[in-house]
Protein backbone atom coordinates (compact mmCIF):
# COMPACT_ATOMS: atom_id res chain seq x y z
CA UNK A 1 0.00 0.00 0.00
CA UNK A 2 2.93 2.32 0.75
CA UNK A 3 4.25 1.81 -2.78
CA UNK A 4 0.84 2.56 -4.28
CA UNK A 5 0.42 5.68 -2.19
CA UNK A 6 3.91 6.91 -3.07
CA UNK A 7 3.61 6.32 -6.78
CA UNK A 8 0.18 7.91 -7.12
CA UNK A 9 1.35 10.92 -5.09
CA UNK A 10 4.38 11.21 -7.38
CA UNK A 11 2.19 11.07 -10.48
CA UNK A 12 -0.09 13.79 -9.10
CA UNK A 13 2.97 15.91 -8.25
CA UNK A 14 4.46 15.58 -11.73
CA UNK A 15 1.30 15.89 -13.79
CA UNK A 16 -0.91 18.34 -11.90
CA UNK A 17 2.10 20.39 -10.82
CA UNK A 18 3.79 20.05 -14.19
CA UNK A 19 0.66 21.29 -15.88
CA UNK A 20 1.37 24.71 -14.42
CA UNK A 21 5.16 24.70 -14.53
CA UNK A 22 5.74 24.79 -18.27
CA UNK A 23 2.83 26.82 -19.54
CA UNK A 24 -0.52 25.13 -19.86
CA UNK A 25 0.70 21.66 -20.79
CA UNK A 26 -2.52 19.67 -20.26
CA UNK A 27 -0.41 17.11 -18.36
CA UNK A 28 -2.95 17.18 -15.57
CA UNK A 29 -5.85 15.97 -17.71
CA UNK A 30 -7.62 12.70 -16.82
CA UNK A 31 -6.66 11.18 -20.18
CA UNK A 32 -2.96 11.52 -19.21
CA UNK A 33 -3.22 10.66 -15.52
CA UNK A 34 -5.55 7.67 -15.94
CA UNK A 35 -3.22 5.50 -18.03
CA UNK A 36 -0.18 6.66 -16.00
CA UNK A 37 -1.70 5.54 -12.71
CA UNK A 38 -2.92 2.40 -14.44
CA UNK A 39 0.60 1.67 -15.68
CA UNK A 40 2.11 2.21 -12.25
CA UNK A 41 -0.43 -0.03 -10.54
CA UNK A 42 -0.26 -2.75 -13.18
CA UNK A 43 -3.64 -2.31 -14.88
CA UNK A 44 -3.14 0.10 -17.73
CA UNK A 45 -6.42 -0.89 -19.41
CA UNK A 46 -8.59 0.11 -16.46
CA UNK A 47 -6.54 3.29 -16.16
CA UNK A 48 -7.06 4.16 -19.79
CA UNK A 49 -10.78 3.36 -19.69
CA UNK A 50 -11.49 5.41 -16.58
CA UNK A 51 -9.12 8.17 -17.71
CA UNK A 52 -10.96 8.49 -21.02
CA UNK A 53 -14.39 8.39 -19.35
CA UNK A 54 -13.42 11.06 -16.84
CA UNK A 55 -11.83 13.14 -19.61
CA UNK A 56 -15.13 13.31 -21.46
CA UNK A 57 -16.86 14.35 -18.23
CA UNK A 58 -14.26 16.94 -17.25
CA UNK A 59 -13.55 17.98 -20.85
CA UNK A 60 -15.27 21.32 -20.45
CA UNK A 61 -13.52 22.06 -17.18
CA UNK A 62 -11.05 24.82 -17.90
CA UNK A 63 -10.54 26.94 -14.82
CA UNK A 64 -10.26 30.61 -15.64
CA UNK A 65 -9.95 33.20 -12.91
CA UNK A 66 -13.08 33.21 -10.78
CA UNK A 67 -14.86 30.88 -13.17
CA UNK A 68 -13.40 27.70 -11.69
CA UNK A 69 -15.30 24.48 -11.23
CA UNK A 70 -13.10 21.44 -10.57
CA UNK A 71 -9.56 20.06 -10.48
CA UNK A 72 -9.85 16.78 -12.39
CA UNK A 73 -6.24 15.61 -11.87
CA UNK A 74 -6.49 14.56 -8.22
CA UNK A 75 -9.94 13.12 -8.87
CA UNK A 76 -8.71 10.92 -11.70
CA UNK A 77 -5.62 9.69 -9.87
CA UNK A 78 -7.61 8.55 -6.84
CA UNK A 79 -10.54 7.21 -8.84
CA UNK A 80 -8.25 5.05 -10.98
CA UNK A 81 -6.21 3.87 -7.99
CA UNK A 82 -9.31 2.84 -6.05
CA UNK A 83 -11.00 1.31 -9.07
CA UNK A 84 -7.96 -0.90 -9.73
CA UNK A 85 -7.53 -1.73 -6.06
CA UNK A 86 -11.20 -2.60 -5.55
CA UNK A 87 -11.67 -4.19 -8.98
CA UNK A 88 -14.56 -1.95 -9.92
CA UNK A 89 -15.16 -0.05 -13.10
CA UNK A 90 -16.59 3.35 -13.77
CA UNK A 91 -19.33 2.59 -11.24
CA UNK A 92 -16.73 2.88 -8.46
CA UNK A 93 -14.63 5.59 -10.08
CA UNK A 94 -17.48 8.01 -10.60
CA UNK A 95 -18.78 8.51 -7.05
CA UNK A 96 -15.14 9.04 -6.01
CA UNK A 97 -14.13 11.35 -8.83
CA UNK A 98 -16.87 13.96 -8.95
CA UNK A 99 -16.73 15.17 -5.31
CA UNK A 100 -12.94 14.86 -5.25
CA UNK A 101 -12.68 17.09 -8.29
CA UNK A 102 -14.51 19.81 -6.42
CA UNK A 103 -12.65 19.32 -3.12
CA UNK A 104 -9.36 19.22 -5.04
CA UNK A 105 -10.05 22.63 -6.53
CA UNK A 106 -10.81 24.14 -3.12
CA UNK A 107 -7.54 22.80 -1.74
CA UNK A 108 -5.62 23.98 -4.79
CA UNK A 109 -7.05 27.48 -4.36
CA UNK A 110 -6.24 27.39 -0.63
CA UNK A 111 -2.64 26.50 -1.47
CA UNK A 112 -2.41 29.41 -3.89
CA UNK A 113 -3.72 31.77 -1.24
CA UNK A 114 -1.86 30.24 1.70
CA UNK A 115 1.45 29.09 0.21
CA UNK A 116 2.13 31.28 -2.82
CA UNK A 117 0.14 34.38 -1.85
CA UNK A 118 2.16 35.50 1.20
CA UNK A 119 5.29 35.68 -0.97
CA UNK A 120 3.85 38.19 -3.45
CA UNK A 121 5.53 41.12 -1.68
CA UNK A 122 8.78 39.14 -1.47
CA UNK A 123 8.73 38.88 -5.27
CA UNK A 124 8.21 42.65 -5.46
CA UNK A 125 11.15 43.38 -3.20
CA UNK A 126 13.38 40.95 -5.10
CA UNK A 127 12.35 42.65 -8.33
CA UNK A 128 13.19 46.09 -6.98
CA UNK A 129 16.63 44.80 -5.99
CA UNK A 130 17.04 43.40 -9.48
CA UNK A 131 17.68 39.94 -8.03
CA UNK A 132 16.77 37.77 -11.00
CA UNK A 133 18.24 34.59 -9.56
CA UNK A 134 16.35 35.10 -6.32
CA UNK A 135 13.06 35.38 -8.20
CA UNK A 136 13.78 32.20 -10.15
CA UNK A 137 14.68 30.34 -6.97
CA UNK A 138 11.61 31.55 -5.12
CA UNK A 139 9.37 30.76 -8.07
CA UNK A 140 10.48 27.17 -8.40
CA UNK A 141 10.77 26.73 -4.64
CA UNK A 142 7.16 27.76 -4.13
CA UNK A 143 6.06 25.58 -7.00
CA UNK A 144 7.74 22.56 -5.40
CA UNK A 145 6.29 23.32 -1.98
CA UNK A 146 2.78 23.90 -3.27
CA UNK A 147 2.52 20.72 -5.28
CA UNK A 148 4.36 18.68 -2.66
CA UNK A 149 1.60 19.59 -0.19
CA UNK A 150 -1.03 18.86 -2.82
CA UNK A 151 0.51 15.43 -3.51
CA UNK A 152 0.21 14.59 0.19
CA UNK A 153 -3.57 14.29 -0.31
CA UNK A 154 -3.46 11.28 -2.65
CA UNK A 155 -0.63 9.83 -0.55
CA UNK A 156 -2.61 9.77 2.68
CA UNK A 157 -5.91 9.11 0.94
CA UNK A 158 -4.53 5.83 -0.41
CA UNK A 159 -2.42 4.96 2.61
CA UNK A 160 -5.17 5.27 5.19
CA UNK A 161 -8.26 5.71 3.10
CA UNK A 162 -8.40 2.68 0.87
CA UNK A 163 -9.90 0.27 3.42
CA UNK A 164 -12.35 2.91 4.58
CA UNK A 165 -13.29 3.70 0.99
CA UNK A 166 -13.78 0.01 0.34
CA UNK A 167 -16.15 -0.33 3.30
CA UNK A 168 -18.01 2.80 2.26
CA UNK A 169 -18.39 1.61 -1.30
CA UNK A 170 -19.54 -1.83 -0.16
CA UNK A 171 -22.33 -0.12 1.77
CA UNK A 172 -23.70 1.44 -1.42
CA UNK A 173 -26.38 -0.89 -2.80
CA UNK A 174 -25.84 -2.19 -6.33
CA UNK A 175 -28.97 -0.41 -7.52
CA UNK A 176 -27.24 2.88 -6.82
CA UNK A 177 -23.87 1.90 -8.29
CA UNK A 178 -25.69 0.71 -11.40
CA UNK A 179 -27.50 4.04 -11.54
CA UNK A 180 -24.19 5.87 -11.17
CA UNK A 181 -22.73 3.89 -14.06
CA UNK A 182 -25.66 4.92 -16.23
CA UNK A 183 -25.28 8.53 -15.10
CA UNK A 184 -21.58 8.26 -15.84
CA UNK A 185 -22.39 7.32 -19.41
CA UNK A 186 -24.61 10.37 -19.73
CA UNK A 187 -22.21 12.84 -18.12
CA UNK A 188 -19.91 13.18 -21.16
CA UNK A 189 -22.76 15.06 -22.79
CA UNK A 190 -22.57 17.59 -19.96
CA UNK A 191 -18.80 17.84 -20.40
CA UNK A 192 -19.22 18.46 -24.11
CA UNK A 193 -21.96 21.01 -23.48
CA UNK A 194 -19.69 22.95 -21.10
CA UNK A 195 -16.94 22.90 -23.69
CA UNK A 196 -19.33 24.04 -26.42
CA UNK A 197 -20.38 27.00 -24.31
CA UNK A 198 -16.82 28.29 -24.52
CA UNK A 199 -15.91 27.22 -28.03
CA UNK A 200 -19.10 27.54 -30.07
CA UNK A 201 -18.75 29.71 -33.16
CA UNK A 202 -21.52 29.78 -35.71
CA UNK A 203 -19.14 29.75 -38.65
CA UNK A 204 -17.34 26.61 -37.55
CA UNK A 205 -20.46 24.78 -36.38
CA UNK A 206 -20.64 22.98 -39.76
CA UNK A 207 -17.77 20.78 -38.59
CA UNK A 208 -19.75 19.85 -35.52
CA UNK A 209 -22.62 18.61 -37.66
CA UNK A 210 -20.18 16.92 -40.04
CA UNK A 211 -19.04 14.85 -37.05
CA UNK A 212 -22.60 13.79 -36.29
CA UNK A 213 -23.19 12.86 -39.93
CA UNK A 214 -20.06 10.74 -40.13
CA UNK A 215 -20.90 8.84 -36.95
CA UNK A 216 -24.60 8.37 -37.61
CA UNK A 217 -24.58 7.43 -41.29
CA UNK A 218 -21.10 6.16 -42.08
CA UNK A 219 -20.43 4.44 -38.74
CA UNK A 220 -16.80 5.56 -38.80
CA UNK A 221 -14.83 4.85 -35.59
CA UNK A 222 -13.77 7.79 -33.41
CA UNK A 223 -10.07 7.49 -34.21
CA UNK A 224 -10.79 7.83 -37.94
CA UNK A 225 -12.88 10.93 -37.26
CA UNK A 226 -10.05 12.39 -35.20
CA UNK A 227 -7.62 11.84 -38.08
CA UNK A 228 -10.09 13.40 -40.50
CA UNK A 229 -10.38 16.39 -38.17
CA UNK A 230 -6.59 16.75 -38.13
CA UNK A 231 -6.54 16.81 -41.93
CA UNK A 232 -9.21 19.53 -42.02
CA UNK A 233 -7.33 21.51 -39.35
CA UNK A 234 -4.04 21.34 -41.26
CA UNK A 235 -5.74 22.38 -44.52
CA UNK A 236 -7.47 25.32 -42.84
CA UNK A 237 -4.28 26.42 -41.13
CA UNK A 238 -2.36 26.33 -44.42
CA UNK A 239 -5.06 28.36 -46.16
CA UNK A 240 -5.13 30.91 -43.33
CA UNK A 241 -1.36 31.23 -43.45
CA UNK A 242 -1.38 31.87 -47.21
CA UNK A 243 -4.20 34.39 -46.89
CA UNK A 244 -2.28 36.20 -44.18
CA UNK A 245 0.84 36.31 -46.34
CA UNK A 246 -1.13 37.66 -49.31
CA UNK A 247 -2.71 40.26 -47.09
CA UNK A 248 0.67 41.41 -45.84
CA UNK A 249 2.01 41.67 -49.40
CA UNK A 250 -0.92 43.84 -50.43
CA UNK A 251 -0.64 46.03 -47.35
CA UNK A 252 3.04 46.66 -47.90
CA UNK A 253 2.84 47.67 -51.58
CA UNK A 254 1.15 51.09 -51.51
CA UNK A 255 3.58 53.46 -49.83
CA UNK A 256 2.35 55.11 -46.68
CA UNK A 257 3.67 58.49 -47.79
CA UNK A 258 0.44 59.92 -49.20
CA UNK A 259 -1.58 58.62 -46.30
CA UNK A 260 -0.16 61.09 -43.82
CA UNK A 261 -2.30 60.10 -40.84
CA UNK A 262 -0.76 60.14 -37.42
CA UNK A 263 0.11 56.95 -35.62
CA UNK A 264 -3.03 57.36 -33.53
CA UNK A 265 -5.35 57.73 -36.52
CA UNK A 266 -3.81 54.69 -38.15
CA UNK A 267 -4.45 52.76 -34.98
CA UNK A 268 -8.08 53.88 -34.93
CA UNK A 269 -8.56 53.03 -38.60
CA UNK A 270 -7.19 49.59 -37.90
CA UNK A 271 -9.56 49.17 -34.95
CA UNK A 272 -12.63 50.10 -36.97
CA UNK A 273 -11.71 48.26 -40.14
Amino acid at each position, binding site marked *: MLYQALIVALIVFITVGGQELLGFTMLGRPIVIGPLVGLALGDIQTGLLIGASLETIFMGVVN*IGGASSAEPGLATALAVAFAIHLHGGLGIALPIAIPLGIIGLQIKTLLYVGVVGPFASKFDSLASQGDQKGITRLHFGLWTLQWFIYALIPFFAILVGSSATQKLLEMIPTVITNGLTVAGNLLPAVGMAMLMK*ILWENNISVFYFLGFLIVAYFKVPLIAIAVLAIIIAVLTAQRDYQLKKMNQDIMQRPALTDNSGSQEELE*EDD*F*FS
Partner: protein
Amino acid sequence: MIKALRVDERLIHGQIAMVWSKELGIDGIVVANDETAANETQQMALKMAVPSGIKVIIKTVAGAIELVQDPRAEKMKLLILVRTVHDAVSIAKSVSNILYMNIGNVGKAVQANKTTFTQFVMLTDEEIASLKELVQLYPETALQNVPGDKRELASSSLKKMNL
Protein backbone atom coordinates in the same frame (compact mmCIF):
# COMPACT_ATOMS: atom_id res chain seq x y z
CA MET B 1 -22.98 50.10 -30.16
CA ILE B 2 -21.56 49.89 -26.68
CA LYS B 3 -22.63 46.56 -25.23
CA ALA B 4 -21.12 47.22 -21.83
CA LEU B 5 -18.78 49.29 -19.75
CA ARG B 6 -17.02 47.29 -17.08
CA VAL B 7 -15.01 48.49 -14.13
CA ASP B 8 -12.24 45.93 -13.78
CA GLU B 9 -8.91 46.85 -12.26
CA ARG B 10 -7.21 44.01 -14.09
CA LEU B 11 -8.57 45.34 -17.40
CA ILE B 12 -8.24 42.45 -19.88
CA HIS B 13 -7.81 39.02 -18.29
CA GLY B 14 -9.16 35.49 -18.56
CA GLN B 15 -12.73 36.29 -17.50
CA ILE B 16 -12.94 39.04 -20.09
CA ALA B 17 -11.28 36.99 -22.79
CA MET B 18 -13.17 33.74 -22.31
CA VAL B 19 -16.42 34.56 -20.57
CA TRP B 20 -17.58 38.13 -21.07
CA SER B 21 -16.50 38.52 -24.69
CA LYS B 22 -18.53 35.42 -25.52
CA GLU B 23 -21.55 36.41 -23.45
CA LEU B 24 -21.72 39.93 -24.87
CA GLY B 25 -20.85 38.86 -28.41
CA ILE B 26 -18.45 41.78 -28.82
CA ASP B 27 -15.99 42.37 -31.63
CA GLY B 28 -13.94 45.12 -30.06
CA ILE B 29 -12.53 46.03 -26.65
CA VAL B 30 -11.73 49.64 -25.75
CA VAL B 31 -9.38 49.92 -22.80
CA ALA B 32 -9.76 53.38 -21.27
CA ASN B 33 -6.95 54.00 -18.82
CA ASP B 34 -4.53 56.90 -18.65
CA GLU B 35 -1.56 55.02 -17.17
CA THR B 36 -1.84 52.11 -19.59
CA ALA B 37 -2.13 54.47 -22.55
CA ALA B 38 1.28 55.82 -21.58
CA ASN B 39 2.94 52.53 -20.76
CA GLU B 40 4.02 50.28 -23.61
CA THR B 41 4.90 47.30 -21.43
CA GLN B 42 1.41 47.23 -19.95
CA GLN B 43 -0.11 47.56 -23.41
CA MET B 44 1.87 44.60 -24.64
CA ALA B 45 0.76 42.47 -21.72
CA LEU B 46 -2.89 43.42 -22.25
CA LYS B 47 -2.79 42.72 -25.96
CA MET B 48 -1.50 39.24 -25.28
CA ALA B 49 -4.64 38.47 -23.26
CA VAL B 50 -7.03 39.48 -26.03
CA PRO B 51 -8.89 36.58 -27.60
CA SER B 52 -8.42 36.00 -31.31
CA GLY B 53 -11.01 37.62 -33.56
CA ILE B 54 -11.53 40.53 -31.18
CA LYS B 55 -9.92 43.90 -31.81
CA VAL B 56 -8.47 45.96 -29.04
CA ILE B 57 -7.50 49.59 -28.69
CA ILE B 58 -5.89 51.23 -25.67
CA LYS B 59 -6.72 54.88 -25.04
CA THR B 60 -6.68 57.51 -22.35
CA VAL B 61 -10.10 58.04 -20.76
CA ALA B 62 -10.57 61.22 -22.79
CA GLY B 63 -9.35 59.48 -25.95
CA ALA B 64 -11.78 56.62 -25.42
CA ILE B 65 -14.73 59.01 -25.05
CA GLU B 66 -13.82 60.53 -28.39
CA LEU B 67 -13.31 57.13 -29.97
CA VAL B 68 -16.67 55.64 -29.00
CA GLN B 69 -18.44 58.72 -30.34
CA ASP B 70 -16.89 58.16 -33.75
CA PRO B 71 -19.70 57.20 -36.16
CA ARG B 72 -17.78 54.08 -37.12
CA ALA B 73 -18.08 52.83 -33.53
CA GLU B 74 -21.85 52.54 -33.96
CA LYS B 75 -21.33 49.58 -36.30
CA MET B 76 -19.16 47.68 -33.83
CA LYS B 77 -20.17 45.80 -30.71
CA LEU B 78 -17.87 47.24 -28.09
CA LEU B 79 -16.86 46.57 -24.51
CA ILE B 80 -15.23 49.44 -22.66
CA LEU B 81 -12.92 48.56 -19.77
CA VAL B 82 -11.90 51.03 -17.08
CA ARG B 83 -9.92 50.55 -13.91
CA THR B 84 -11.86 52.73 -11.48
CA VAL B 85 -15.45 53.79 -10.83
CA HIS B 86 -14.19 57.36 -11.15
CA ASP B 87 -13.14 56.71 -14.77
CA ALA B 88 -16.51 55.07 -15.43
CA VAL B 89 -18.23 58.28 -14.28
CA SER B 90 -16.05 60.37 -16.59
CA ILE B 91 -17.18 58.26 -19.54
CA ALA B 92 -20.81 58.04 -18.43
CA LYS B 93 -20.99 61.83 -18.32
CA SER B 94 -20.35 62.11 -22.04
CA VAL B 95 -21.59 58.80 -23.38
CA SER B 96 -25.24 58.01 -22.88
CA ASN B 97 -25.86 54.87 -24.91
CA ILE B 98 -24.07 52.24 -22.86
CA LEU B 99 -26.29 49.16 -22.67
CA TYR B 100 -24.89 47.70 -19.48
CA MET B 101 -22.91 49.47 -16.75
CA ASN B 102 -21.03 46.76 -14.87
CA ILE B 103 -18.99 46.97 -11.70
CA GLY B 104 -16.83 43.85 -11.88
CA ASN B 105 -13.51 43.62 -10.15
CA VAL B 106 -12.32 46.58 -8.18
CA GLY B 107 -10.45 47.43 -4.99
CA LYS B 108 -8.16 44.43 -4.43
CA ALA B 109 -5.15 46.36 -5.72
CA VAL B 110 -5.95 49.52 -3.77
CA GLN B 111 -4.20 50.17 -0.47
CA ALA B 112 -6.61 52.28 1.54
CA ASN B 113 -9.58 52.18 3.85
CA LYS B 114 -12.19 50.26 1.89
CA THR B 115 -15.81 49.18 2.23
CA THR B 116 -16.52 45.66 1.02
CA PHE B 117 -19.55 45.41 -1.26
CA THR B 118 -19.00 41.90 -2.58
CA GLN B 119 -16.12 39.44 -2.73
CA PHE B 120 -14.89 41.28 -5.82
CA VAL B 121 -15.85 44.88 -5.15
CA MET B 122 -14.18 46.96 -2.43
CA LEU B 123 -14.48 50.72 -2.63
CA THR B 124 -12.82 53.67 -0.92
CA ASP B 125 -14.95 56.60 0.21
CA GLU B 126 -14.09 58.55 -2.95
CA GLU B 127 -15.02 55.58 -5.10
CA ILE B 128 -18.33 55.25 -3.26
CA ALA B 129 -19.04 58.90 -4.06
CA SER B 130 -18.22 58.13 -7.69
CA LEU B 131 -20.53 55.11 -7.59
CA LYS B 132 -23.40 57.29 -6.35
CA GLU B 133 -22.74 59.66 -9.21
CA LEU B 134 -22.68 56.75 -11.63
CA VAL B 135 -26.00 55.43 -10.35
CA GLN B 136 -27.49 58.87 -11.01
CA LEU B 137 -26.35 58.68 -14.63
CA TYR B 138 -27.03 54.98 -15.12
CA PRO B 139 -29.65 53.74 -12.63
CA GLU B 140 -29.27 50.19 -13.90
CA THR B 141 -25.60 50.01 -12.86
CA ALA B 142 -25.04 46.55 -11.41
CA LEU B 143 -22.44 44.58 -9.50
CA GLN B 144 -21.68 41.33 -11.29
CA ASN B 145 -18.45 39.39 -11.61
CA VAL B 146 -19.18 36.78 -14.27
CA PRO B 147 -22.32 36.44 -16.42
CA GLY B 148 -23.50 33.46 -14.36
CA ASP B 149 -23.70 35.59 -11.20
CA LYS B 150 -26.76 37.55 -10.21
CA ARG B 151 -26.82 41.19 -11.30
CA GLU B 152 -26.98 43.12 -8.06
CA LEU B 153 -28.13 46.68 -8.56
CA ALA B 154 -25.57 49.16 -7.25
CA SER B 155 -28.36 51.39 -6.00
CA SER B 156 -29.80 48.66 -3.79
CA SER B 157 -26.34 47.73 -2.48
CA LEU B 158 -25.76 51.34 -1.55
CA LYS B 159 -29.12 51.46 0.19
CA LYS B 160 -28.55 48.17 1.98
CA MET B 161 -25.25 49.44 3.38
CA ASN B 162 -26.72 52.81 4.36
CA LEU B 163 -24.31 54.73 2.20
